[in-house]
């Protein structure tokens, strides 16, 4: 059941965040969201080891970091922290069009996939494929 799959969605772009939330909900996923790295880490830590831990995270790269400063690598830093806490945890990294080196960097940091914003139908399929493969 998709409702049993819980997605951590992190982006400081409120409209994008809300749109993705709706798309994931409509696709049947459970979603909790955060607007920065610090809040996301808190959410993740609170649920980790509990009855309903996150199954996958979708992170923006450019957002406020743990110190509250807008940081183009905040998503990568959060990714590292999540993987340190739960090795092998599946993460999809979001960013804008055509940033090849950053995409490669994210994959090298342990991201399962990298997703260009605005193509949410493909995102649903991607989340499905990663969760089902796990």
């Amino acid at each position, binding site marked *: 059941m998709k409702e049993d799959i819980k997605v951590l969605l992190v982006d400081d772009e409120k409209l994008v965040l809300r*749109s993705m939330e709706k*798309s994931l909900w409509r696709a049947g996923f459970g979603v909790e969201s955060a607007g920065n790295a610090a809040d996301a880490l808190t959410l993740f830590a609170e649920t980790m080891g509990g009855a309903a831990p996150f199954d996958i995270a979708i992170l923006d790269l450019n957002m406020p970091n743990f110190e509250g400063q807008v940081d183009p690598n905040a998503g990568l830093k959060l990714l590292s922290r999540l993987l340190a806490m739960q090795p092998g945890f599946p993460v999809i990294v979001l960013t804008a069009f055509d940033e090849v080196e950053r*995409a490669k960097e994210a994959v090298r940091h342990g991201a399962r996939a990298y997703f*260009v914003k605005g193509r949410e139908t493909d995102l649903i399929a991607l989340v499905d494929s990663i969760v089902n493969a796990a």
Partner: protein
Amino acid sequence: MEKSTLAERRAALLHAGAQVSRNITSILDADVLLARTVDIICETFGFYYAGVFLLDETGEWAVLRAGRGEAGAAMLSEGHKLKVGGLSMIGAATGRNKAMIALDVGDEPVRFKNPHLPLTRSEMALPLAVGGKVIGALTVQSVEEAAFSEDDITALQAMADQLAVAIHNAHLYTENSRLLMQATRHARLLMAAAEVSKGVTSILDLDELLHRTVDIICDTYGFYYAGVFLLDATGTWAILRAGRGEAGAAMVAAGHKLQVGGLSMIGAAIAERQAHIALDVGEEAVFFRNPYLPLTRSEMALPLVVGDKVIGAVTVQSVEAAAFSAEDISSLQAMADQLAIALDNAYLLRELEAAHAELVRTKTFEAIATATTEAIHWIGNKALPITVSVQRLREDLSALSGVAPERVDSMREDLALIESSARLIIRVKEQLIGPAREYRPAPAMIEDVLKDTVRMMDIPAAMIDYAITPDVPLGIVDTTQLGRAFRYVLQNALEATENVAVPHLHVEIAPTAEGGIRYVATRLSNNGPSIPEADMPKIWASFYTTKDAEHPGLGLPACVQIIKQIDGQLTARNLPEGGVVFELLVPAFVERETESTVSLPAGKRFLLVDDDDVWSRFVERALVEAHNTVSRRGDGEIDYAAFDAIIVDGVLGQVDSTVVLNDIARAGAAEKTLVVASSVRVERTLDWMRFGVRDVLIKPYTRAALVATLG
């Protein structure tokens, strides 16, 4: 002759001799001295004619330098001269250094019969000698037979000796005066050179320096005209940058330029790095006949040299023929050398200023570009959720009940409008952001970049043909950006040929040069309709399109931006037979690699997965020459584990590279696999990386780049 008469004549002769001597010794101008001498002799002695001959520089001819009356004037105008040692009495007197007398000219065999002096009956030729050296001769002639006595000879020879000394003194005086004038002029020229140097070396503004220089030269030396030419960037033309007066201003305004090594004196002076002088411009082959300077009779062109570099030349012109001496050349060249240093300093300052201005421009551009990029991102990101929201609304609409169908249709139409606008905004964002990405120019095979783009666009092979010049040089480009530019141009061509029965694209790739710069030209022509000539300039403008609202009109402006960033050129023109050709020029890579600078691995086994194309042949050759084994992927079973490294071209003609990568991953060989592509995009890169390959990289097109790629 009676004693008293004889005594009187002797006294008169002595008196006359003394008078002649007194008169001539005070005259220092040689021409005046000789003219006065012949008059005094005739007036004092009552002779019919007197004339003075002086030896020429060769010593072989006695040339008449002064002659009494009309006869003398006529002979002077004829350039009358007599051979030293010849049959004439003057010839004999100068040849033998001995007075010659003919008391009856009819009996004298050596006398030259002179039609200008028909009445002569007696003639005497007296040598003019100083210190035993003959310098000429004096002739005196009488209408009387036997007119000269021994006393006359003695008296006249004494006078002739005085005359010789006076002539010698006059010559010395003239020579001394000439030397003095020369020294004075030389000193003045050196002072002028110093003045020019002082004037120009303190000026650092290039334009002011050039204009002040021509004024200072003309004012100081009194020349008719001076001008300064500087070499253009190509080094093939000398451009007039400053000229004296109205003529100079007119020539500068007309863009007056002369070819280096051409027929002009400036062109020759620059090419040969040495001064050129035309003392009579009519006789100088390399003189450039200039309608702005009709009075020029002498011209000097001086190269402007700093170290081993020629930066231009100075022309100075005079209205006088033979206006320049050897001293002038050395003085003016010294001035030109100082000017060259001053110009070089001004150049350096200008370069510094230009570098500073460029820095300010770059920083300003960076600030604007950053702000623009952020603004484009911001707007684009805001539009991103719209298309997804529209999709959700459309799904919800289908589930609605109790709404009139026409209302539903209207809502669907509105949603389509909203979605179309949002997609357009996203497309504009991507087309604007693309060219603004960071550039990493490197040598690349233009043919390979183009063919990869064609494959990625799935353009059928039958629709396109190629004419590629063998050994075309590499271009210096960012291959991802060039691939993007090719994509825009190819897309444009595909759209242009949509309604053509048999659409066809033709590509030429060839080396070319413009303005001394070498390029690689890619000419992409299509057989679609021509572009109206009036529209041709507009196609490069942002947001100009003749297509529907789905086309933002940014493809070609983005191409221009991409090509300009690599110092290339992009043009378009209609073909006479119909259709349009776009020409992309990118700078050629002209350096040659030396083997010592690159060190490829040796003794390795490589598997190369690629079509048999120009790039794979280059890689195979380089690796084999470095003593590696290179295998190509064929159709049969492959033992991937047998290779030390696998190189996969991400864009293959016959097979999808992900199929090959899947095989490699299943064989456990992904970690030693490199995927390369002429241009990389996020989706494709991640598609390849998810097979666990070592890396995805831009294709190397030189041995040095191949070394870096192989790590």
